[in-house]
Each structure stands twice: as C-alpha cells, then as structure tokens.
C-alpha cells in the first residue's frame, strides 16, 4: 500500500513536469476555438496555427540564424577552450598562474556589469545587426577552459611524449592526439555551449533589430509580447513548440549526456 502511494506521488510529480509541454503541443495542433480545452488528445487536428505562423513571421530564417549562431559558437568554444585549457594544463610558462586566476575571476563576474559597455562596444565596432555581434562575444568561455584544463590534466603524459617524438607540434597534439581521447569532455562542453547559445535571448534583443537576423527565441519573444499575437494563442504556442523542439529532440536521444553535463557544471539556463 505504501509502495502504491509512493508511485502515485512520483507519477503526479512527473505529470506536473510533463503535462504543460504536452498541452502546448496539443494546443498548437488544435483549431483556435478549441485551445481552451485542457485535454490530452486534440479532438480535431489542425495545422492552421503553423501555416499562420509561417506567413506572419520569418520563422524559418530565425531557425537558420539560431542554428548557425549556436554551431559557430560551439565550434569556437571547443577550439579556443581546448587551446587555452591545454596550455594551462600541460605547458610551463611565465604568467600561467596569473592567467588561470584571471579566468576564475571572469567566471565569477556578474554579467550585469558588462552588459551596457559590451553593447556600446558593438555600436562602435558597427556590429549591431550583424552575426558578428551574436557570435564573437561568446567564442570564449571561461567555464569551458577550466573544464578542458581539468580533463587534459587526467590524460597520461605518454601519449603527448609519443606524439612529440613523432614530430607533432602543439596544435597537432591538441586536435589529433588529445581530442580523440577527450570525447566525454567535448560532448559535455558542446552540449552546454550549444544549449546556452540556443536559449540566449537578452543579448539578441539588445544587438539585433533587423527581423531577418533575429534568433528564434528572440523572434518568438517579440511575437509573444507584440500586438500581432494578442488574439492568436495558437500561433504563439506553435512558435514556442518550434523553439522547444530541437533541444527536446536532442534531449530524447542524449538524455544521459544532458543531465551529466548540466550536473557536472551546476550551471543553469
């Protein structure tokens, strides 16, 4: 009996976390006048909200923008992060501790202090309304550097020595010797970076005003708060579904990696 109650409690909790998403998908697939029904199965299927969404906002372009930006950032963070992480973990040089200290310092620096000056920087670079503004400030990530450093420290010195005897330079050592031996670190850092970039919305709202350069969460946000969506809940929910879908699909396949990645860093959003 106690067991049964226990599982009922857990199942109710699971429903509380899953149902809102389920409702969103169902409502986005229902005709506008049936969205108010809080059911589990749509009484009649309708793609009206989706076709309406496509005609109202450049959502396909936003999907491309978000994907492009997130891929560039993830690639940059992996490449630069492993370069710096390798130098800090494996090479001796003057100023190493100072650089390590600076990285830890930037990690604890609240973003509220740099938000306005970074925007002004974008204005001065004339990067407002360009991909540069969305990508360049995110190419380097202190947390990623620290994680690469930690991981590279655990790899045996033998593989590096062997590569040196074969005449490998440091870049070859990083990308041809260490990378194939660091898949867990690459996956973890890749997932966190891609997700953070995909979900970022404050920065795009600040530096992008051209509708065709907007990222998906930005476009959906402006659509949701703007007058255009006021009467059409279905379109708003269709846009939200599209925004959630890529990450949720990735989560279904790589669930374990997602949870491990996030738990290993303790970061959120």
């Amino acid at each position: 009996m106690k067991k049964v109650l226990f599982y009922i409690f857990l199942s109710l909790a699971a429903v509380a976390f899953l149902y809102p998403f389920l409702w969103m998908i169902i409502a986005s697939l229902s005709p506008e006048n049936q969205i108010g029904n809080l059911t589990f199965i749509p009484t009649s299927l309708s793609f009206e909200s989706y076709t309406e969404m496509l005609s109202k906002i450049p959502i396909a372009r936003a999907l491309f923008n978000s994907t492009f930006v997130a891929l560039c950032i993830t690639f940059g963070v992996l490449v630069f992060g492993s370069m710096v992480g390798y130098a800090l973990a494996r090479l001796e040089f003057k100023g190493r501790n100072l650089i390590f200290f600076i990285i830890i310092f930037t990690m604890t620096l609240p973003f509220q202090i740099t938000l306005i000056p970074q925007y002004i920087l974008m204005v001065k670079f004339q990067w407002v309304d360009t991909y540069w503004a969305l990508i360049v400030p995110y190419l380097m990530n202190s947390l990623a550097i620290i994680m690469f450093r930690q991981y590279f420290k655990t790899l045996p010195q033998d593989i590096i020595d062997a590569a040196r005897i074969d005449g490998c330079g440091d870049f070859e050592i990083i990308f041809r010797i260490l990378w194939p031996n660091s898949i867990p670190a690459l996956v973890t850092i890749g997932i966190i970076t891609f997700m953070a970039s995909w979900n970022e919305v404050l920065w795009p709202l600040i530096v992008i005003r051209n509708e065709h350069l907007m990222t998906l969460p930005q476009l959906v946000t402006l659509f949701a708060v703007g007058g255009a969506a006021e009467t059409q809940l279905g379109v708003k929910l269709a846009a939200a579904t599209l925004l959630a879908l890529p990450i949720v699909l990735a989560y279904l396949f790589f669930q374990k990696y997602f949870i491990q990645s996030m738990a290993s860093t303790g970061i959120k959003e």
Partner: protein
Amino acid sequence: MTKKKLVPYLLVSPYLIYFLVFIAFPVIFSIVLTFNSWNIISPMKYNGLNNYIRLFHDQFFLQSLVNTLIFLVIHIPLQIIVAMLLALALNQKVKFLGFFRAAFFLPVIVSGVVVTIIWQQLYGFDTGLFNRILTTIGLGRVGWLIDPAWAMPSIAIMATWKNVGLYVILFLVGLQTVPNHYYEAADLEGANKFQKFFKITLPMINPTIFMVVILSTIGGFSLFIEPYIMTGGGPLNSTLSAVLYIYKQGFFFYNMGYSATLGLFFALLILSVIMIQKKFIEKE
C-alpha cells in the same frame, strides 16, 4: 628554442584578446560611464556623482531591489524543499528511475521563453488551468499575474518549476555520497527516520545546499525574460526585476550612464550577498 617558448603564449592569446576587449575594457568603461550621462548619439557629458545620487533616490530602483528580495525569499526555500523531496524519493530503490529523472529535468533544458509562454496561459485569470482547478474545488480565482501581491510570487513558483530538476540531480548525487555505515551506526543507536535525516543526511549534503542557494541568488538577480514576456514588469512595477530595469534604462530611455550605474551596483550587490551567504553557511 625561442619558438617553443612562444607557443604557450600563442595558445592563450585568443583568451587574452577576449579578456582585454570583452571583459577588462567593459568593466573599466562601465565605471567611467557611471560618472557621465550619455545617450550614445550625442557626445558623452561628465556629470559627477549625479548617477549615484539619482540611484539612491530612485523609487524604481528600490522597487526592483524589493522585488528581487521577494523572489529570492520564496524561490530559494521552495526550490530546496521540492528538490530535496524529489531527490529523497528517487533515492529509494525506484523503478523507472531514468524516466522520472528525465521528466523532472525536462524544463531545465527548455528555453525560458517557452516555459514563460506556457505558464502565462496556466496563470490566466479566466481560463487558466490553476484558476479552473481552484473554482472546481470551490475556491475563488487568484489574480496570478494581474494582482501586484501575487505577480512576483507567481514568477518565483514558475522559476522553481523550471530549475528544480537540476537541483534534484545535484541532491541525488550528494545523497549517494553519504556512506551507508553512518546510517547503520545510527540504526544501532535506535535513531528514527527524522533524526537520521537531520543529523546525518542534511549536514553531509550541506555543500550542495550552498550551491543551490548561490545559483538561485544569481538567478534571481538575473531574472529578465520571465517578467519581460509575462508582465512587462507590471502590474504596478511589482515584477520589475534588476536586469529588466537595467534594460529599460539602457534601451528604452538610452540612459547609458545611469544604466551602467545600475549594472555596477547590482553586480557588487550580487558578489556581496554571495560572500555573506558563504560566511553564514560555513559557520553552520
């Protein structure tokens, strides 16, 4: 030989450039900005301590501080209690553990924009799910997002729902590090379940609780998209958050100097709050 000596610097140079351009310069420039008034278009004007004087007489600034405090006072305990309950439940020998864990974690990975759009509907006054449940069991409707007394607590509840999955996982990891023989020893002494929880479990996972408190505090001060979409900071500025106010001063009114002053002040506040929390928890 010299080439070899240069390699480390070559490797870290992207970071140094990034640090100088995107961290060091902005931090210094933000301090310069706090002594100036500037709308980006016309030239910057020195105005002494005016931004600071304004800050201490600004009722909106005070309101955003109070709002953040309300958020934290509700969000932090709620988050710890719910995460702990779910983690303790999952720490039993549970069937379908993977499913439950994945379900609790789902909102963590989904964009805050999506979560906010969904909860805006759940909180709806006439047709929202919560008010439907309340009226069905014979209670009155609550103005979740339209009553100034409820709006911030509503956002705090939603934020808990969104983030709690991460803390369930962190607590679960923490619980599994408690050595089993501690409990066995307690059993021999005849300790009951609650004694075991408060005397063994809680002290052992104290570092995790500390992490939850810190991350939630940073989260509270970073609150932006939720009030931006749900309420625009209203009703009656009851959900005006720190970042939303910085954003409004910067990008609605183009007061770069004053906006930077707010940013600097909130950043220092976050760092000091975290220090105090750290001291307090280390003492415990």
